[in-house]
């Protein structure tokens, strides 16, 4: 243990508590946003990050000749934008989100360093915290470039993020405010 959160100054414990509360709140809204724009099933994620259009699964390669199809739509359907992330948007998303995810993973890892847990457990938690964003974005890129089946990797990344945060938040809160050996 590089430092001990249990016996740290009240100000440090207060800072960590507020950081965890703020991150937790942002994660809840993050989950809500995922539900609104991408969904939690592999099919929904594949639709969001995979090839565009009606024939999402069928047409991954450009056709040899340009093809046109027409279908009736209602005014409401035109208003409903299907959130689809194309390659350019994914480049932008990766560029802006990866640094933020790295900072969050670093913050949670620093908290984990102050927990009274075995060395292997600390290493595992840090690995999960950093693996989560890598899985998240690797899944999105593989879904786009290789196969919609890789949507599951993005889902695994999202759940890993939630798991890492929950483990750190629960242990840190317990050790800081309840368990004081």
């Amino acid at each position: 243990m590089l430092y001990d959160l249990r016996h740290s100054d009240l100000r440090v414990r207060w800072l960590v508590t507020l950081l965890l509360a703020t991150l937790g709140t942002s994660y809840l809204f993050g989950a809500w946003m995922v539900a609104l724009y991408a969904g939690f099933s592999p099919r929904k994620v594949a639709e969001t990050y995979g090839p565009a259009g009606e024939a999402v699964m069928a047409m991954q390669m450009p056709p040899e000749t340009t093809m046109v199809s027409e279908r009736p739509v209602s005014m409401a359907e035109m208003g409903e934008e299907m959130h689809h992330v194309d390659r350019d948007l994914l480049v932008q998303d990766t560029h802006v989100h990866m640094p933020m995810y790295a900072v969050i993973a670093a913050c949670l890892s620093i908290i984990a360093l102050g927990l009274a847990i075995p060395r292997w457990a600390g290493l595992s938690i840090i690995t999960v915290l950093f693996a989560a964003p890598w899985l998240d974005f690797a899944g999105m890129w593989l879904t786009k470039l290789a196969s919609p089946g890789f949507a599951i990797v993005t889902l695994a990344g999202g759940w890993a993020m939630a798991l890492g945060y929950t483990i750190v938040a629960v242990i840190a809160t317990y050790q800081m405010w309840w368990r004081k050996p």
Partner: protein
Amino acid sequence: MKTLVLGAVTAALLHITPTVVLVKRQDAVAHLLPGADQFAAREVHVSSADSRRIHDAVGWEPPDGMVTFYVGKHQDQVAGALMFMRVDCQHGPLELAIGFDPSGKIRGVEVTKATVEMKPWVLEALRAGLTDAYRGLAPDQAPAGAAKVKPRIGAMPGYMAELVDKGVMHAAAAYRLFYGRK
């Protein structure tokens, strides 16, 4: 700790601000396809050769090889077509709705979405009459709305106007090359 705080601030500054709706898509449809009461989505899956063609023409190709035109009709007569076009920049995406009349000329342009950061810049450009410059433009004419409004607006609104020009140019090229395809 200092490094950590600095890192968090830097990451926050790098983060693109959320998107805001400036004009609802339905309102844009009603405005740009007046009188239409039947609609169809014409989806064009663009071949590699056609992607190269449009890229050579305007330096842009359809995202994921797909262009969607929304065709509006009234009593089986085409009232026009409309497409939504996204333009990306380092401040985030802009979404435009570009309407074409049955003769293929631009009927109007609406900026439907921007980011929180870009919104005031976009509104300043719009207040200066940016979108008036596109009305009646043929698909093979280069849009020049930015040049028209730039002398009267600030640098960032001027940059937004250039982005809108770019989106209109992409939409016009897509219309010219793909709208009539069967």
